[in-house]
Structure formats: structure tokens, C-alpha cells
């Protein structure tokens, strides 16, 4: 027995939806059947009431119709300053969205939800302003008339004969938290109109005559009440769901509507949307591209794009398929998506065409099986719907000329062969011509060729020759077959060509996506990704593209942009920013900031927006729906790549953090051990000296003093190394390179270490012709000191140490070699790591920083350092310093010092 408890998943979804709603502001709509029923009045009254209860209410915008009683209600409430827009010399006043967001009141009053904003305002429609307010967490009170609802648009037009241009998507209405119906019987409304309470008297008369007829008002009122009832019904459903009130549930429906490039399609879409809403079913709009779609006029294309956009606005899914037989394609797709109802338009083509080509409705009803088919009638005058306007493709006139040429060639060949072949066989030559024309020149020219061929064949080769008269009636049959065959061939060839073309197009699209995908996978940096993205987008779609990525302050910076492009002016930046912040496409051809030059698609990942893809069409054409889909696919791939790059960077950071943490802990152990040992020796020796001032033997005293000094030096070295390492890691070590001889640094180092090196004979082997090297002598001296000290520490007294330097193509190699026990094999690469201690060493001698510092310094010089074992025993450390650039010019031979010469000015740094 099924449980009567609510479904947990459904409850969770509901809780989440409620959470989102809590963060969002609440929308309250005062809904009416017609202007003048008192919506604004009711809204302001409600606002005053909550205002009195202590809520922070601000009037964002109230239409200044100057109705006195309404005006009176405004008094005493805070009013937001209106936005003043200069539109072709006249001043327009609009709702000031930015000011409202900045003020952020608890409740904002915004009249007329369906209002269309003037050009130059962020959004084209006021309902978009309201959506943004809600997103920002501001509660909004607004008003709406039933005639402005998008899905009712066509019905209203049918009833009143007036097409309402300002519409609000039903989803906005449905998302409202509260809808209050403001109702007034039509008689009272007309009375109010007469009294001049709605419009000024003269306008009122005209309004009553045109729109506010009693019949219209009754119909509108019915629509409003019905819509309201629907909403209440939905609420009831939600309630039942929440409280597990189960009744009978119809099986889940799914609707599919087939649309084409005609204005009638919008009606189909609205009708489907209404059906879907009442069935609470998802719906899909399908457009099937046929062979003729390539010949569509620009306006038809525009119409199709607009229809598809309407579908998305109304919450439907859009799909574009391509195929020959619309009915077959539709049924096949419908079955694959478990569609239960198909909506199509009533055919409006002439009967003969239907008979000749077959009717879509007939095809559908025959093949639909258990799918219901709904046929919606269209009542628009056919003249306004040029489905396929006669249009000649550029170059097609030439094609007919070519076709004529082919016929001439066929005639020539036939003339040559006419003695050997019977005329019926000559017909085959013409058929060959028809096939050739169909293949290369398209359908029209091939039909043309078929007809002309029959005529020419008759005229030239069928006896009696040189007349169109036919001697033998058999030839009539030949003509007929020849013509039919020609026509079939041309149709078939055209079809094959269309299929090949659409396959090619799909292939191109897939290839473009594949190419960008593949290249993006191999890319790491954001800049690189942006560059590749721009290249591919520009190659695939005829646009100028940029990728905008946020910097640290979330300011968008353009990447991969063409240098000569001036597209990113301040205005576009604002559009891009909006797209980025809201994760929605904005700009040209969309509802948000449509006046801008470009189209901006957000690069969205599961977590957030990571950037914006901006495109500006190169031609004056706007980007069509197909291209937008492709761009969206591109945007998805780019976003993924960017997210991956970001995640990788984060992972690197984490790795670095771990490494730093590891270093910090080894630093602690080093500090505790390596600092304490010398300190305890110093303290011990010092206190012994103090206590035994009188009694200690001079030799013993001296020993203690020596160990104090030795340990202090060891401590000094450790502290110095730690400081150097810190500076290296912090990037605070500045390299001041100067061109200088290696022997100078070697000499200075040997002089400084003379005491430590006393027990080790040092030989130097510096090539005589060694050039000057660009190096920082202080830092390189540090490297040599560390290497020599290591050599002294790890080798027995008396063993020799050799320092040598030589040139190797474009670098100088400096080696420090000892004759000690050598280095542990297999750990040569790890020697230069921080805190590395050879596994074999029994007691720690240093902190394991010296070689790491050497590596850091050498790398700062652009060189490398390596360790090896001497073939004859002992360790070799060698580092390479690159000979970058050219040394400054040498002075002329011994210039007299008293006459400084300008030419002697060096370029050393």
C-alpha cells in the first residue's frame, strides 16, 4: 500500500525553493482586468498600511496620471527620484533602478509591471527591473492588467482587435508570492471613465469608443478572473502536495509544437504554452530544417529566431532538427522524447500542393499511433506570411545560362552521333545533361534543363526535324518519360545535396567544437585559454570575439582581443558586466540592453560565472539562433576550461601551502636542534670559565674560549642561512649583475675563508682567456662560500679542494671539487632540496640549507647547479652562469685618465 507520507525529495525541493524565495524579495501583484479598476489605488493603500505598521516603504515609480485620489495617497510616503532621459529632444521619465538598488528599502512600489523602458535604460522591460530588485532582496508591490500577460496576448487581440505590445512573461506572474485581484464591474468602470477619473474627459470618450466597450470589458474581466482562479488552483495543488493529499494524478504529459518561419508560429507557441500550463506539462518547440531553408529570406529567418526566443521566454525547450519529411522527423523525435501531444498549424497551402506533396497533418495523423495531434487554425491574412518569397540566389541567373550551355553541348554531341544512334537513344544524352546540371547547378536549373532538353530534342532530332511537330506518337511517350525522369533526378539530387550540405554543416560545427575542446584541454593559463577561444569562435562564426575575464577586483578585462578593435567601449563593458553578474546572456538581440553593439554570453560553471564571451557580428546581420546555440556550446567549453585552470591554480596553491607547512615544521625542528646545540656549548663553556676563573689551566681556558668562538660562528652561519633562505623565498633577494672576472670573486672568497681552509690545500684552475661574466659578486661569493664550507666539513683534513672555471659555449662553468668520501649515489638530485640531510650522515652538521641557497642564487642568475661524483673519488659541485648579452665595450687602449672620453661610456648594468 502506498504510504500517505509526503515524498521526501519533493519536500526537499520545496524547502529549497522556499529558501531561495526567502533570500529573494517578495513580489506582490495587484492584478486587474483593465486600466482604471483601481489597482494603483489599492496598491498605495496597502503600502500606507504596511508603512504605518513600521515597514520601510518607498515609492519607486507611480504613473503620474494625475488622478487626484491616487495622488493624495502618495503624499507622506518617500518617493525615489525618477530617471530623466533625453529622448530626441523630449524628456522622458523612467524608474531609477540603480537608485533603488542603492537605497535598498524593505518594500518598493513600482507601478505598471508591463511598461517598456525608454531606450538607454539597462533593461528593455520594467519587469526585468523588478526581477533584479527581487534578486537584491527587495520586496516589490506592482500592478498588472490581464491584457499584458504574454500567453493571453493573441486571445486579447482576437477579443479587442488591439494587439498589445507591452507583455510580461507568464513566469513572472506565476513567480509572484501574492496576487491580489482588484475587481470592478464593467458598468462601474465605464461610469468612472465618464467621470474622468481614469483619463481626461476627451481621451476618455475615445477610449470608451475603442477599447472600453462593455463587451470588451466583460471579456477581459472573465479572463482576469479565470487566470486568478487558475492561480488559486495551482496553490491548491501545492498545498495538497505539501500535505500529502493524494488524489488521482493524470499521467505526465509532454507537448511538442512544430514551428516554421511564419508569424503564425507565435500563435502556435502561445496556444501550446496555454495547453501546457493547464496540463502542467513540459513542452518542446521543434523547428525542422528542410531543403528549402537555405533559400529563406532574411525577414523569415528573423521571424524564426524571434519565435524561438519567444519559446524560451515562455519556458519551453527549443530543438532544431533537419530532415526531408517533416512528419517522419516529428514522429521520430516525439517518440524519442515520450511526447504525448503534438501541436501543428492548420495547413494553409493550396489543395493541389497538398495533393502533390502530401500534407503534414495527414502524414502525422497516419503515423502518430498513440500520440494525440492537435491542429490549430491560423487566421492571419495569407498575404502577410510570405513563407518562401521568390528569391533568386546570387549567381543563379548565371546557373541558368550554364544550364543552357549544357543543353547546347548535349545537342552538339547528339548531332555528331545522330547518324549512328536512334533518336530515342539520343534522349539518354540529354538525361545525362540533366543529371550533370542537377549535381552542379541545383534544382531550378535542372528542371529548366529537363524541359528545354525535351523541346530541343523534339525540335532537332525527332522527325519531322526542325519543327516541334511530332511525326510518330511514340515520341510523345519518350518525351513524357524523359521529362518525368529529369524531374525525379533533379529532385533526388537536390535532396542528396541538401542532406550532404546539412551533414557538412553539422560536421563543421562538431569539428569546430572538437577542435576548440581539444586545444583547450592542453592549455593551462587563463590568457592562453582566452586567446584560443577567441581564435576558434572567430573561425567558426562570422563575428569579432573577445573573452572578458574578471581580475582580482572582479573588474572585467578583455583578453585575446584584436588590437585594432575598438569594440570594448564603456557601454559594452557595462553589458558584459551585467551578463557576468547575472549569468544571463545580454546585449544585441536579447531583452537586456539590446541597443548595444555586441552580444555577451556569460561563461558559467557549476559554481559561478568565470567570464564573459563577447561577440560583435561583422556584417549588419544579427547573430541567428543557430549561431547563438553554437556560441553557447563554445561558451560552455570555454567556461569548463577556465574552471579547470582555476581549480588547477587552486590545487597548486594548496600544494604550495602544504609545502610551506612542511617547511615550517622542519624549520621548527631545525631551529630547536641546530640553534640549541651551539647555544648550550657556549653557555656551558662560558659558565665553566666564569666559575673556574682562578683554577682553570691556561690550556683548558683557551680550549673553552675557542669552542665558544667556533660555536658562535656556527650559529652565525645558521642564522645567516636561514635569513638568506627566507629572503630567497620571499623574492626579496635582488640580483645586481655586473660584468666581472670570475677570478675576482674566487679570490675574495678564498681570502675570506682563509682560516677555515687552513687544513685543506686549495688549488685554483681558472682558464686564462675567460671572459667577464654578468653576475652579482656578493651572491656568487655566497654560493662559493657554501660549497667550500661543505667541502671542508665533509672531507678529512689535508685532502685537497680544487676550484676551476672554464667556458662552455654560452655559459661559464665553475666547479668546486673535493677528494672526500663523495656523495651518496641516487640522492644527487635531492641534495639541493631544503633541509635535505643525507641518509648516511650520522650527525647533523648543518640545517641542510646551504645547497638550497646555492641553487636559489644560481637560478636567479638564470643558471643551473648540479652535483656529481669525481671519477677519482670525491664530490664535484658545478654551476653554470649564462653569458647573456654582450659585455660593455672595452675602453680604447689606455686612454689618458685626465681626458675622460665620452666614447668610453660603458653599458654595463
Amino acid at each position, binding site marked *: 500500500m502506498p504510504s500517505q507520507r509526503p515524498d521526501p525529495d519533493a519536500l526537499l525541493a520545496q524547502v529549497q525553493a522556499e529558501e531561495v524565495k526567502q533570500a529573494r524579495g517578495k513580489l506582490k501583484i495587484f492584478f486587474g482586468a483593465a486600466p482604471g479598476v483601481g489597482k494603483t489605488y489599492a496598491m498605495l493603500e496597502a503600502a500606507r498600511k504596511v508603512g504605518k505598521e513600521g515597514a520601510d516603504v518607498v515609492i519607486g515609480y507611480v504613473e503620474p496620471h494625475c488622478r487626484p485620489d491616487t495622488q493624495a495617497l502618495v503624499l507622506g510616503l518617500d518617493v525615489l527620484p525618477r530617471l530623466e532621459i533625453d529622448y530626441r529632444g523630449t524628456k522622458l521619465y523612467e524608474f531609477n533602478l540603480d537608485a533603488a538598488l542603492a537605497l535598498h528599502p524593505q518594500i518598493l512600489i513600482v507601478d505598471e509591471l508591463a511598461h517598456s523602458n525608454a531606450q538607454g535604460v539597462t533593461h528593455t522591460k520594467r519587469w526585468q527591473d523588478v526581477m533584479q530588485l527581487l534578486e537584491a532582496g527587495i520586496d516589490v508591490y506592482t500592478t498588472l492588467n490581464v491584457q499584458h500577460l504574454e500567453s493571453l496576448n493573441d486571445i486579447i487581440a482576437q477579443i479587442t482587435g488591439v494587439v498589445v505590445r507591452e507583455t510580461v512573461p507568464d513566469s513572472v506572474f506565476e513567480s509572484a508570492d501574492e496576487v491580489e485581484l482588484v475587481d470592478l464591474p464593467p458598468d462601474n468602470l465605464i461610469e468612472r471613465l465618464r467621470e474622468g477619473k481614469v483619463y481626461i474627459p476627451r481621451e476618455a470618450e475615445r477610449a470608451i469608443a475603442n477599447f472600453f466597450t462593455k463587451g470588451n470589458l466583460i471579456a477581459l474581466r472573465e479572463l482576469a478572473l479565470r487566470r486568478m482562479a487558475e492561480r488559486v488552483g495551482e496553490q491548491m495543488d501545492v498545498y495538497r502536495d505539501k500535505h500529502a493529499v493524494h488524489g488521482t494524478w493524470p499521467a505526465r504529459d509532454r507537448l511538442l509544437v512544430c514551428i516554421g518561419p511564419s508569424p503564425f508560429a507565435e500563435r502556435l507557441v502561445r496556444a501550446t504554452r496555454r495547453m501546457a500550463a493547464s496540463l502542467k506539462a513540459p513542452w518542446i518547440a521543434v523547428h525542422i530544417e528542410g531543403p528549402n531553408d537555405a533559400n529563406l529570406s532574411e525577414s523569415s529567418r528573423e521571424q524564426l529566431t524571434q519565435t524561438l526566443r519567444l519559446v524560451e521566454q515562455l519556458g519551453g525547450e527549443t530543438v532544431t532538427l533537419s530532415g526531408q519529411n517533416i512528419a517522419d522527423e516529428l514522429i521520430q523525435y516525439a517518440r524519442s522524447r515520450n511526447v504525448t501531444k503534438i501541436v501543428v498549424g492548420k495547413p494553409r497551402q493550396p489543395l493541389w500542393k497538398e495533393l502533390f506533396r502530401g500534407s503534414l497533418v495527414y502524414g502525422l495523423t497516419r503515423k502518430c499511433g498513440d500520440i494525440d495531434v492537435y491542429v490549430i487554425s491560423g487566421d492571419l491574412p495569407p498575404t502577410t506570411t510570405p513563407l518562401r518569397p521568390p528569391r533568386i540566389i546570387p549567381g543563379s541567373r548565371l546557373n541558368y545560362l550554364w544550364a543552357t550551355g549544357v543543353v547546347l553541348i548535349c545537342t552538339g554531341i547528339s548531332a555528331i552521333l545522330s547518324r549512328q544512334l536512334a533518336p530515342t537513344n539520343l534522349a539518354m544524352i540529354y538525361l545525362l545533361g540533366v543529371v550533370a546540371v542537377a549535381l552542379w547547378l541545383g534544382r531550378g536549373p535542372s528542371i529548366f534543363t529537363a524541359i528545354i532538353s525535351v523541346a530541343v530534342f523534339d525540335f532537332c532530332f525527332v522527325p519531322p526535324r526542325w519543327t516541334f511537330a511530332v511525326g510518330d506518337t511514340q515520341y510523345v511517350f519518350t518525351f513524357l518519360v524523359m521529362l518525368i525522369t529529369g524531374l525525379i533526378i533533379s529532385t533526388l539530387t537536390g535532396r542528396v545535396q541538401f542532406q550532404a550540405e546539412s551533414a557538412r554543416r553539422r560536421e563543421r560545427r562538431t569539428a569546430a567544437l572538437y577542435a576548440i575542446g581539444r586545444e583547450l584541454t592542453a592549455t593551462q593559463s587563463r590568457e592562453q585559454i582566452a586567446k584560443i577561444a577567441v581564435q576558434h569562435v572567430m573561425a567558426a562564426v562570422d563575428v569579432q570575439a573577445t573573452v572578458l575575464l574578471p581580475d582580482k577586483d572582479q573588474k572585467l578585462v578583455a583578453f585575446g582581443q584584436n588590437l585594432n578593435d575598438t569594440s570594448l567601449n564603456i557601454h559594452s563593458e557595462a553589458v558584459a558586466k551585467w551578463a557576468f553578474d547575472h549569468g544571463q546572456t545580454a546585449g544585441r538581440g536579447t531583452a537586456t540592453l539590446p541597443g548595444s553593439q555586441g552580444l555577451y554570453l556569460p561563461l558559467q560553471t557549476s559554481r559561478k560565472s568565470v567570464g564573459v564571451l563577447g561577440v560583435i557580428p561583422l556584417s549588419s546581420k544579427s547573430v541567428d539562433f543557430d549561431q547563438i546555440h553554437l556560441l553557447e556550446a563554445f561558451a560552455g567549453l570555454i567556461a569548463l576550461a577556465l574552471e579547470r585552470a582555476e581549480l588547477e591554480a587552486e590545487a597548486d596553491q594548496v600544494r604550495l601551502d602544504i609545502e610551506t607547512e612542511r617547511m615550517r615544521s622542519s624549520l621548527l625542528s631545525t631551529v630547536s636542534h641546530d640553534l640549541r646545540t651551539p647555544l648550550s656549548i657556549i653557555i656551558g663553556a662560558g659558565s665553566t670559565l666564569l666559575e673556574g676563573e682562578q683554577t682553570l689551566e691556561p690550556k683548558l681556558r683557551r680550549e673553552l674560549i675557542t669552542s665558544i668562538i667556533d660555536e658562535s660562528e656556527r650559529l652565525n652561519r645558521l642564522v645567516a642561512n636561514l635569513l638568506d633562505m627566507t629572503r630567497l623565498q620571499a623574492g626579496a633577494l635582488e640580483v645586481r649583475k655586473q660584468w666581472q672576472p670570475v677570478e675576482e670573486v674566487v679570490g675574495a672568497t678564498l681570502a675570506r675563508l682563509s682560516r677555515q681552509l687552513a687544513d685543506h690545500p686549495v688549488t685554483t684552475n681558472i682558464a686564462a682567456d675567460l671572459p667577464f661574466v654578468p653576475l652579482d659578486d656578493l651572491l656568487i661569493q655566497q654560493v662559493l662560500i657554501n660549497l667550500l664550507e661543505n667541502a671542508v666539513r665533509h672531507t678529512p683534513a689535508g685532502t685537497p679542494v680544487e676550484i676551476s672555471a672554464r667556458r662552455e659555449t654560452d655559459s661559464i662553468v665553475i666547479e668546486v671539487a673535493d677528494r672526500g668520501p663523495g656523495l651518496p649515489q641516487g640522492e644527487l638530485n635531492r641534495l639541493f632540496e631544503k633541509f635535505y640531510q643525507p641518509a648516511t650522515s650520522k650527525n647533523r652538521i648543518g640545517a641542510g640549507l646551504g645547497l638550497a641557497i646555492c641553487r636559489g642564487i644560481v637560478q636567479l642568475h638564470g643558471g643551473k647547479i648540479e652535483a656529481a661524483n669525481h671519477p677519482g673519488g670525491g664530490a664535484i659541485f658545478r654551476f653554470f652562469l649564462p653569458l647573456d648579452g654582450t659585455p660593455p665595450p672595452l675602453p680604447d687602449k689606455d686612454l*689618458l685618465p685626465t681626458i675622460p672620453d665620452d666614447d668610453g661610456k660603458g653599458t*654595463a648594468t
Partner: protein
Amino acid sequence: MTTEGPKILLIEDEQEIRRFLRVSLNGHGYRLLESANGRDGVMQAASQQPDLIILDLGLPDIDGMEVISQVREWSKIPIIILSARGQEHQKVDALDAGADDYLTKPFSIGELVARIRVALRHVVQNAGTSEGAVFSVGDLRVDMARRQVFLSENEIHLTPIEYRLLTTMIKYAGKVITHKQLLKEVWGPDSVYENHYLRVYMAQLRSKIESDTARPKFLLTEPGVGYRLATQ
């Protein structure tokens, strides 16, 4: 506390270092004046007329450079600076600004006393000019009256610049001399030459008077600072 012997002013903010230097320098026969900050140091330098100043570069109140330039406005008292690691470039600036020598902390008292001696000797030499005298260290002998240079009694031929470089080094024998100072002294105050130019001549000079150029006995290199002519 001794009442004779040279007077040394120590400007150093670390009390422990002052204590240690007081004990050690008194032991070597110097009288020590102490100052814990730069302003007081400048005042004492003016009022007490010390023979030498030991100046720590990292002072709490004013920059050591500031002390040097203030003192140099009216006096040529030798100044020895004490610098810490990581202050290499400040050290060179201080030397160029007029300090005479430097020591890097930590240092041994032996080194300090040697530097003090050299500095004080130069004051004496400058008083009674050494022009025309003969300078010799180890095998090297320079007869400045005759403009002759000998290495173990063999005369060495030097070009005019090499000779001038060597005599300039002799003038400051035992003291560190920065690249900039050398360029100025040898090539004139308007010298536009770079350190690289100086190094070329130094290498030439070394190849003539040093037996092993990688381990010079006379012309010692002070990395990052300049050169020093050995006096023993």
C-alpha cells in the same frame, strides 16, 4: 679608564654591543665616548671632537647616512661603519657618502682594532704629506718620486692609468675604497665610466704585479663594495 690615547665616539643603539666594545677598546688603549642614537651622536661629535667615529647603520632615530653627511659638513674625522647582513648596498652608499671603512656584524675585535689603526694612520699621513715617499708591501715597492714600480727588485712597466690606479690604492692603503671613489680619483670627478671599466684595468694591473691573480696578495677584492690594498 684611560685618559690618554685616541678618543673614539661609538654611535650604537644596542647596549650590549656598547658594553662589549667599551671593555675591548679600553683594553687596547682607546678612550670611548658612547651615544645611543644619531642626533646625540652628531652633537657629541661636534662638542667632544673625537679622533674617530664608529657608527652603526641601523639607528632608531635618524639614518646612519644622515649622521655621515651631517658630520662631513664640517669634519673629516674618520668614520668606520658597522653594518648587518642584507645592508650591503647601504654600506656602499655610506662609503660613497664619506665613511672611511666598514665592518660587517658579527665581527671580531681584532678586525675592528686593525681598521681603527689604519684609519687613524691615514689622518696622520694626510697631516704630513707622503708625496714622493716610497711605498712597499711584501715584494712590491713603489717609488713615487721616480714613478717606478718594482716586484722583487725587477722593474715592472705600467701604463699611465695602471700606475695612477696603483698610486690611488696606495693613497688609501689598508682602507676599503669603493668602485665609485676609485673611478672618481683615477678618471676625474666627471668620470662617466662604469665599474666594468675599472675591473678591466684592475685585472691588467693584477696580472702585472700579482703572482696568482685568483689569490691576490696586494690588490684585494671587497665583493659588492670595491678594493683594498693590503698593508702587510
